[in-house]
């Protein structure tokens, strides 16, 4: 069995974000990057399936992005991926989901993957499109927002998370693509020996230009901080003073403290 996992590297969401000079993206200086949280679940599920099948499947990890993306790829390899493809694209942020998905599909087309895992969405952009578009372009069946996954003899049974905590259960035959939701499993931390082993794994490098000539279908006109809708009172400073201020406010404004 051949498995593909698509991962994106995103900035840490606790960072401060400033628009870049062109006002089309955020300024990347001073940002720390990590693997998209949803994609950690995708990697983990692939590795668990490989373990279930006695180590037979080969897991390829794919990521599109600039040089720094290799860090996220290495983490996925240390979690249990076998090999990786880095599609180098320094203008990745100017690509829309259609173009990103077209690149992935164009790479995957000749490879005959039985199962593809992606995150349900990215943390920075969150359009929840790339996985489904890849599936449609490859003509394989697809289910999104998985919180449950099991495999048995060429068929997967998935649990999709719906609003209000209800779940929808469905069966798909391979080849298939699934998008992973938070909580699908418990992503492992790479151990030191596995980090060392990952250093020897192959990371093939391709350039974006080799894969697609598709033009964008949407474009970012501008990026900016949201207008502050007022917001409330901000208490900064020393803990003791903050405690006293908050106590006073709650006594005055709510009926819960008397």
């Amino acid at each position, binding site marked *: 069995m051949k498995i593909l996992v698509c991962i994106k590297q995103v900035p840490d969401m606790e960072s401060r974000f400033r628009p870049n000079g062109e006002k089309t993206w955020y300024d990347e200086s001073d940002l720390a990057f990590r693997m998209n949280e949803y994609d950690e679940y995708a990697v983990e599920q692939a590795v668990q399936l490989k373990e279930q099948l006695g180590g037979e499947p080969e897991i390829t990890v794919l990521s599109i992005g600039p040089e720094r993306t290799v860090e996220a790829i290495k983490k996925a390899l240390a979690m249990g991926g076998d090999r990786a493809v880095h599609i180098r694209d320094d203008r990745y942020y100017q690509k829309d989901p259609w173009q990103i998905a077209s690149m992935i599909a164009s790479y995957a087309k000749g490879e005959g993957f039985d199962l593809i895992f992606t995150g349900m969405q990215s943390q920075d952009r969150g359009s929840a*499109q790339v996985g489904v578009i890849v599936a449609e372009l490859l003509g394989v069946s697809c289910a999104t*927002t998985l919180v449950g996954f099991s495999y048995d003899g060429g068929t997967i049974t998935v649990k*999709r998370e719906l609003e209000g905590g209800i779940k929808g259960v469905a069966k798909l035959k391979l080849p298939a693509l699934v998008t992973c939701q938070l909580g699908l499993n418990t992503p492992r931390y790479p151990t030191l020996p596995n980090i060392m082993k990952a250093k020897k794994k192959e990371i093939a490098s391709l350039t974006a230009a080799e894969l697609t000539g598709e033009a964008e279908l*949407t474009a970012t006109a501008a990026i900016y901080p949201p207008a502050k809708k007022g917001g409330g009172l901000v208490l900064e400073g020393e803990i003791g003073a903050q405690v006293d201020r908050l106590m006073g406010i709650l006594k005055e404004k709510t009926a819960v403290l008397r």
Partner: protein
Amino acid sequence: MKALLIGEYRQGKLLDTTYELKAFADRLGADSVMLLVGSDSELPKYDGTLYLADAAKYGEYNPDQHKQLVLQAVEKENPDCIVFVHSSYGWDLAPRVAVALKAGQVSEIVALNEGAYEVNACNAKLRRTVTPKSGRCVLTIQAGAFTPSGEPQGTPQPERLELSGTASAIEFVGYEAAEQKGVDLSKAEVIVSAGRGVGKKDNVPVIAALASALGGELGASRPVVDAGWVDHSHQVGTTGQTVSPKLYVACGISGAIQHLAGMKKADFIVAINKDKDAPIGEIADVLVVADVMQFVPAFTAKCAR
């Protein structure tokens, strides 16, 4: 401008979010027609053409066939945009339609800005305006962002849609009910919630102690539940419980839209976060900029006195 609105139907019921699609079309100044894979007994209140396919035949979750049905309506109506709610139904189906039409998709629109669509980025710390480059586009709107101004009214003119084949790559098995609620947070007057910012499971009792000092219940954000620090019955948000206490205290919670959807109706909101820019600050009445593990024990001690 003409919009094709894709209504939602689940477990034999029309979903209310369907009416947000019409509100969006009105804000856009667009004419609209609607499509629903549903049933005659649950028609939306809507003045206009309703393309209706029978859910008993085409399923409630059957994206391959629902895509074909949408494409049929597109063929008949030639709309400029096809609009979905950004929900488990919409985000699953919309990109399939977009690929078939080779149309650009703009996801989770929160507002309109002079003809362009506004969407959030980076956990709502940034906003983007996006413009489709394709003639026709697919749009998904954030649930709750475009609310109808009054009670929905009208009587649709149904037009039946049928497919010739019914083959599908996906076999829908059925629904699984939400987990039994161990605690009913909806009646709590005070809720103190733990988020990922509390750091580790061992710290959760510190948050629970504040909850009990205030005579309230412990709530939690999703990562805390996913990590097994707190039981799912305490989760607040779109995939947890919706609450409206007199006081909501968010400890180490960033304020993602899916969390806010569950607690923004609280009368008074206090957030404790080390990040002054955390989006929770937008809706909090008071944002305490501090380390939760320092502030909360100090505050609990003060309450206890």
